[in-house]
């Protein structure tokens, strides 16, 4: 039960229930769709970059609590950041969930303030993709990848 509490922390449940920045930007500068075929999680990220910074970012879609909360917290975390900073955050988040060295992983996550709540996902390897899907989709948007992103 404790591992479950670490996974489904209050912040996670709150963001899953009441996602922030939910919706789509009309005429965004970047856009990408992501899909996890295993569980059907779907997310579309739109963002506008102005003067080198994220001026606005929204997401829409549906999926499990982990993917929804991750998307919601991601939009809050990257607002106002430069593209370089956003990509660095993705690297840290990804490392935080996937690197086997727990110390290294947790220190990567610690850099990310609120996003550190996803540390609990590490104990649930099949759920890592749920948390990283919004981020992969975000990076695809930045890369202007037009094919939908798949986590498989």
């Amino acid at each position, binding site marked *: 039960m404790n591992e479950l509490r670490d996974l489904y922390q209050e912040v996670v*449940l709150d963001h899953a229930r009441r996602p922030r920045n939910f919706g789509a930007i009309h005429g965004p500068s970047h856009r990408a769709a992501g899909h996890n075929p295993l569980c*059907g999680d779907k997310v579309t990220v739109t963002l506008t970059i102005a003067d080198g910074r994220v001026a606005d970012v929204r997401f829409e879609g549906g999926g499990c609590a*982990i993917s929804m909360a991750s998307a919601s917290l991601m939009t809050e975390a990257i607002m106002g950041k430069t593209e370089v900073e956003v990509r660095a955050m993705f690297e840290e988040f990804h490392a935080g969930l996937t690197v086997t060295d727990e110390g290294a992983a947790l220190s990567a996550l610690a850099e990310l303030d609120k996003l550190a709540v996803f540390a609990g996902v590490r104990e649930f390897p*099949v759920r890592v993709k749920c948390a990283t899907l919004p981020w992969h989709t975000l990076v695809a948007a930045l890369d202007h990848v037009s094919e939908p992103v798949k986590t498989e």
Partner: protein
Amino acid sequence: MTAMQPLTNLRELDVARIRQDFPIFSQPVHGKRLVFLDSAASAQKPRSVMEAERGIYETAYANVHRGVYSLSQRATSEFEAVREKVRRLLNARETREIVFVRGATEAINLVAQSFGRAFLSAGDEVLISHMEHHSNIVPWQMLREEKGVQLRVAPIDDAGELDLETFEKLIGPRTKLIALTHVANALGTVVPIERVIRLAKEHGIPVLVDGCQAVPHQAVDVQALDCDFYVLSGHKLYGPTGIGVLYGKAELLQAMPPWQGGGDMIRSVTFEKTEYNELPWKFEAGTPHIIGAIGLGAAIDYVQSIGYDAIGVHEDALLAYALRELSKINSLRIIGQPRHRSGVISFALGDVHPHDIGTILDQDGICVRAGHHCAQPTMDRFGVSATARASFGIYNDRDDVDALVAGLGKVQEMFRL
């Protein structure tokens, strides 16, 4: 009613004893007793299946249909004996109507590629239903790409029942094959396949029945059904993966061209001309899954030693109990309310995503399936992207249902439903 009680008890399965036949149940999950409610995806295996496979390896293993030496002859006769077991299981007329394949998926692809390519042409129609597994959708779509064959889909109603009236209307002069599931894997609907086949016969249309989810739960008689093809996967019938069965009426199989080419499926080969083997080997190119077939034979023996009557009584009572207990959970919605259900219950719990349900239940050793169950059109029909699904087998009992209900209570607590 009270007079019936002892009789019912007599026929009740001794689940505790059955569980002892399945080694996996002696191993805890996350320190908890394993509550396995995902047999519809793949069933657990009894020890006798493992022992049969090991036994062949240890005493009678060689390639089949090849050697003149006695070991190969023994392997061949053990392998072919399973074909006879399958024939009896399905009550097919002849053993040559039983083709070993990898599973239901391969069986349907075989029919699509062999029967479909040979006998269907552009504009001809294949009629399926809205609650098919992807394996009974995609092979026909591939045929559509290749040959311009049309796919017609019979609707289902809100209960998850086939809409028979519309189904009948969809049968037309161009309908050349009806391919339907016997039991829908995402909903548990038992399709009134007898009526469907009767209707089809009135129009002279061959029928393929996907029996994957039926054979683990009920006796099937392909002659009584008068279906033209019947397919199943061994691993859902407590047997190994990688082995399944295509039953086809001899005259149809005879008329169909081979699907894959290679060894075993030929009688003679020269570079100018190859003569194909007779049924069923015409459809079994290459070294078959010998050990898989042996395991399947042991699985059939095991199921028959318990008996479909006893299995039916036990599982019907268990399903009724599960439906009753699950219905008591507020915010739980059962997806599909068919009059006649077998094996599975799909459900949603408030707004909690099935994957979250699956993760939380897993911590208590409870295995349920969460996802679209390879039946995305079914999910779309009910306006969901995924469901949680509990499915039942001979080793499940009320304790498993109670564990599921308690586990769902934890999900509610976690998500404050």
